[in-house]
């Protein structure tokens, strides 16, 4: 149909045959730069924090004069969007976004807590698969995001010390070597998303996937006692889906892409 709803004279109206439809899909996938149609496992993933965060970024772009429709999100996200507040994407993300050609969120792959040493029994592990990043994309910024809930049973002036580590090396007979990325003091009553800059770590993981051994966190009380992150209000796997920890990375195309001849 042309703009006025009239059937264009040059076209024959007919339904596409199955193989034609498949070819058409293949062509559009090619335009999107994808070798095949992705098959995500979406049992819970679609209500997870990462897609909601990404949808916020998408809407930020769309409302900024992009041609794609801001209301174009699939209906399955609508109920979640209306119940969620405040928006996940901050001004910092908006700044990263302006400079980025691609943004990618990564779900935490750790499904079960491992038996760690007594000293690290409260540590939590996080792993992210950065192996499917298209060639030529360079990380310009990356964040590890954790949600902290208010710990109502604590006193107002109680604080916790949260430490985020990069796992540098694993050993079969002893504890893994950790590199402290950041330590941050948290108020017991504060609530919201915590963002940790892991740009350098992500770059290392992209360039050298063998070094991608994940992250660990630990929490201490103000008196130096190690406690479970859950006791400090940090949401883990058993928490709400929209508050699950995840990682987000911003990419810039570092080289020109030419679509190969087909």
């Amino acid at each position, binding site marked *: 149909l042309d703009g006025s709803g009239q059937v264009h004279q040059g076209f024959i109206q007919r339904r596409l045959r199955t193989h034609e439809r498949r070819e058409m899909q293949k062509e559009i996938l090619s335009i999107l730069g994808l070798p095949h149609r992705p098959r995500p496992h979406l049992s819970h993933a679609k209500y997870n924090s*990462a897609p909601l965060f990404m*949808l916020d970024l998408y809407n930020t772009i769309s409302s900024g004069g992009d*041609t*794609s*429709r801001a209301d174009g*999100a699939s209906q399955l996200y609508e109920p979640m969007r209306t119940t969620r507040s405040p928006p996940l994407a901050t001004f910092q993300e908006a700044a990263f976004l302006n400079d980025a050609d691609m943004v*990618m969120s990564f779900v935490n792959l750790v499904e079960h807590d491992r038996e760690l040493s007594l000293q690290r029994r409260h540590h939590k592990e996080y792993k992210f698969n950065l192996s499917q990043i298209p060639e030529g994309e360079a990380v310009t910024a990356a964040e590890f995001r954790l949600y902290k809930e208010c710990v109502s049973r604590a006193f107002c002036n109680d604080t916790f010390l949260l430490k985020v580590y990069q796992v540098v090396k694993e050993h079969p007979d002893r504890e893994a070597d950790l590199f402290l990325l950041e330590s941050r003091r948290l108020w017991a009553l504060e609530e919201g998303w915590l963002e940790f800059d892991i740009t350098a770590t992500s770059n290392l993981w992209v360039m050298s996937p063998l070094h991608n051994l994940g992250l660990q966190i630990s929490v201490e009380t103000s008196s130096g006692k190690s406690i479970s992150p859950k006791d400090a209000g940090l949401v883990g796997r058993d928490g709400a889906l929209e508050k699950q920890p995840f990682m987000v990375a911003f990419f810039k195309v570092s080289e020109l892409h030419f679509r190969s001849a087909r």
Partner: protein
Amino acid sequence: STGGKRRQQNRNRSTPTQEVSRGPSQADYNGSDQKAACRKHELYVSFRELGWQDWIIAPEGYAANYCDGECSFPLNAHMNATNHAIVQTLVHLMNPENVPKPCCAPTKLHAISVLYFDDNSNVILKKYKNMVVRACGCH
């Protein structure tokens, strides 16, 4: 530069130069020919119709659009004709068998962003440059 001698030859060959002299007027383009003039046509690529809602989160589709129509003399009847298109038309009129008319092609393209899941259920937000035809013109 075509030179006086060559112009003379063309005149003797008749057809192309005659076409110049009796080229369609602005009024012609406002009438039935306007339909065939180079312009943007809407074409919506629906990800929903393709059954891709399980992996494309947003948008549901996008107005890809396309350009179609004739680029005929005089070019001022066509919006967005490039300067080069005018040269192309003149050369075509002088040598219609060997030199094609200007093409009806996009003169303004815009980007879209697509939000989708990959195989690992990670989410990708990617900006695709030059995906949407905003304006067509003769080139």
